[in-house]
C-alpha cells in the first residue's frame, strides 16, 4: 500500500463530508458530516506520519487531539441543536439566521 491510496480515501471522505455539510438541511446531519470531514483529516495525518516515519509520531499524536476535539465539538454542537429544536421545534439550518442581527 502506498500513500496515494490513503490520500485518495481521505479526499473522498472529505468530499463526502463537505457535500453533506453544504447540502443537508438538518443540523444533526450537518454535524455528522463535520465528523466525517474530521475523520478524513485524521486519516491524512496518520498516513503522512507513517509515510514520513516520524520518530516523534507527531502526526499520530495530533490525530488523537483531533479525536478529542471532535468529541468535544459534537457534545457542544448536539447540545446547542437540542436547545434550538426545543425552542423552535425545528432543526433546519436554513431557518437559523438570527445571528446576523
Amino acid at each position, binding site marked *: 500500500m502506498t500513500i496515494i491510496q490513503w490520500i485518495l480515501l481521505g479526499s473522498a471522505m472529505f468530499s463526502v463530508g463537505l457535500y453533506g455539510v*453544504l447540502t443537508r438541511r438538518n443540523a444533526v446531519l*450537518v454535524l455528522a458530516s463535520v465528523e466525517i470531514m474530521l475523520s478524513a483529516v485524521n486519516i491524512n495525518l496518520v498516513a503522512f506520519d507513517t509515510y514520513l516515519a516520524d520518530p516523534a509520531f507527531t502526526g499520530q499524536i495530533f490525530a488523537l487531539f483531533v479525536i478529542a476535539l471532535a468529541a468535544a465539538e459534537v457534545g457542544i454542537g448536539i447540545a446547542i441543536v437540542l436547545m434550538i429544536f426545543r425552542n423552535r421545534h425545528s432543526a433546519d*439550518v436554513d431557518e437559523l*439566521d*438570527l445571528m*446576523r*442581527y
Partner: protein
Amino acid sequence: MPAVVAELSRVAVFLQENVEQIDAGDGGWLAAYAWLIPVVPMIVAFLILFFGKYSPWKGWGMATAALGFVAVYGTALAVANLRDGIIAEFSVNIGDVGTFAIEWGWVVDGLSILMFFLVGVVGFLVFVYANGYMKGDARYTWFFASFTLFAGGMLVLVSAPNFIQLIVGWELVGVSSYLLIGHYWEDMDNIDAANKAFMTNKVADAALFIGAVIMSLSAGTFQFSEIFTRMIDGQTVLAQFGFWAGLAIFIGAMGKSAQFPFHVWLPDAMAGPTPVSALMHAATMVTAGVYLIARLFPFYQLPEFSGSMRTIIVVVGAVTLLFMGLLAIVQDDIKRVLAYSTVSQLGYMVAALGVGAYTAGLFHLFTHAFFKALLFLAAGSIIHAVHSNNMSDMGGLRKYMPVTFWTFLIGTAALVGIFPFAGFWSKDEIIASAYFNASNNPEFAAWFMVVLSIVGAFITAFYMARVVSLTFFGTYLGDAKPHESPAIMTVPLVALAAAATTAGLLNIPGLTEVFTEWVTTRAFPIVEHHFTEPEYFLIAIVTPVVLLSLFIGWRLFGPSSELHYTSTSGEAADVSAPERSVAVERDTFRIPVLYPLLENKYYIDDLYMNGIVRPTMGPIADATLWVDMNVVDAVPNLTAGVAKHAAAAVGVIDDNAVDGVYNVAGATTGAIGGFLRQFFPGRVQQYVALSFAGVVIFAALFVIF
C-alpha cells in the same frame, strides 16, 4: 511662702508635727489590687449590656456577683484596716497637661474603705432584693446594666486620689441616676423627674468644676494628698482663694447630697424603681457630697484655708435638716416621705462635718445607709404588695406583711434614734458634737445647729410615727390584695434590719471605738473632739423629745384618729371589701399656719419652675430657635442653594455634551452594522461554501505559483 507659715494656726502646727505619725500599714497586696473594686462592676455593666439577655438570670446573676465581689473585697479591706490600718495610694500617669499630671489611681484608706464596704454590702443586698422587685419588668436586663454602671461609677468616685477621677465618677453616678430615675420612661412625669435630677445636679456640678479648678491651680496639682501636703508646708497660694474654692466645691456637694436649695430633685427621683431609691437615693449616691467634704476635710478643718466655710456648711446642713424634715410630714407618697427624710438626714451629716465632727458625720452616713436602705426596701415591699405608692391606699398591713412590718419598725427605731438601734448612737454623737462646738465656739450658728438638731430629731420621730401608723395600722384602704413579699425580698430586709440594729454598737463613746479608728486612718490627721463617754444630759433631752414626738404622732395619725361613718349612699355593702361599707377618713391632722407652705414645698419648686425653667424654655428658647432657623440655618441653606444650581448646570453639560459623544458613537456603529447586514444573509451553509471556495482559490494560487 513664709508669710503663710507664720499665720498657720494651732491646728495646722499640730498637723505639721503629726503628719508622719499615723500608725498604719500599706495594706500589702490587698490594697495594691484594690483597683479591681471599681473595675469589676464597670466591666460587668458593659457585659450585661451586650450579653445580659443571653446569660442565666438575664443579667441579674452577673450584677449580683459583681456586687458580691465588691462586698467581700470591701469587708476584707475593712477587717485588714481595723487590724493593722491601711493607708495606701496608687496612681498611674495617663498624660500631662503643662505641669499638671493627669492620673488614674485608687486610694485605700479608712474613708474609701468605708465607702467600698457600704456600696458593696448594701448594694449586694439591694441587688438580691431587686430580683424579686423587678420581676417581669420590660427592661429587666437594661435595669441591671445601668444599676451596675452606677455601682462602678460610685466606686470610681470614692477610690479617686485626684479631682479628675473624682469628677469622672461624679458624672458617671449622675448619668446612671438619670437613666434609672427615668427607667419607667413611658410616663412623662418620670422623664421630667429624670431631667430635673440631671439638670439640678448639673448646676451644682458646674460649681464643683470651678472649685476643683481653683483649688488645683492654686496648689499646682490635682492630687488630694499632694494638695494637703503643700497646704501644710505653706507652698500654696490656696490661702488666698481657699474660701471660694471651698464654697464652690461645697455647692457641688450640695447638689449631689440634695442640700437646700438643691434638694428639689431628690423627692422627684422617687419616680425610679424602689431598689434604685434604696441604693442610690438613700444609701450611697447622695452621700457622695458628704464623702467629698470628708475627703477634703483636711482642707475644710483649717480656717486659714477655708475661711468661714464651716459656718456656711453648718447653716446649710441645719436648715436642710429642719425644713426638709417638715416637708416629710405632709407627703402622701411613702417614698417621698422617706426621700425628704433622707435629705433631712443628709443635712445632719453635712452639719456634723461643718461643726468639725468628722467621725460623727461619717458614722451617721454609715448607719443611715443601712437603716434608710432598709426603710426603702420595706416600702418597696409594701408597694409591691398594694400596687400604690400612696399611704392613702395602705393601712393595716401589719397583719398581712409581718416580716416587712417588723423590719420597717426596726428601721424606724434606728432612724428616730431609739436606744440601742444604730441611729441612736450616730445622731447622738452629732448632737453631742454640735453642743461641744457651740460651747467652745459660742457664735449664733453653732447654737442654731444645736437647737435645730434637737428639733430635727422631734420632726423625724413625728413623720415616722405618721408613716408607721398610716401604713401598718388602722383600716386597709387599698384595692389590691396585700400579701407578704417572696423570700428573695424579705431576706435582704432581715439582713439590713440586723445591720440597722447593731451598726451603732461600733462607736459607743468610751466603750467601742472601732468606727473612729476605721475612718480616721488617713494620711492626714483629723483634728476633732473625742468623746470619752456619752453625753448623758443630751440623751436625757433628746430621748424624751423623740418619745414624746412618737406619742403625739401616734395619737394624731394612729388608729384612734380614724373617723368612721356609715356610707350615706344607701347602697348595699360591697361584699368583696367588707370594710368599705363604712367610709374611713384619716390623716386628717393639718399643721396650723404652716400647712399650705409645706403642701407647696415652700414654693421653691414653683419658684424654680416659673423663675428659671419657664423663662428659659419660653423666650430664651424661642429666641435661640429664631437665631437657629434664620441665622445658623442660613449658612447651610445658602451653601445648599449654590450647590443645587451648580449641580443643575453640570447636569445639562452631562446630558448634552458628555452623553452626546457616546450616543453618536453608538448610533454610528448601529448604522454601519445595518448597512453591512444586507450582505450577510445568515445562512450557515452559504458561509461554509464561501469559505471553502476561498480555501480552494488560495490552494490553486499556491499550486500555480
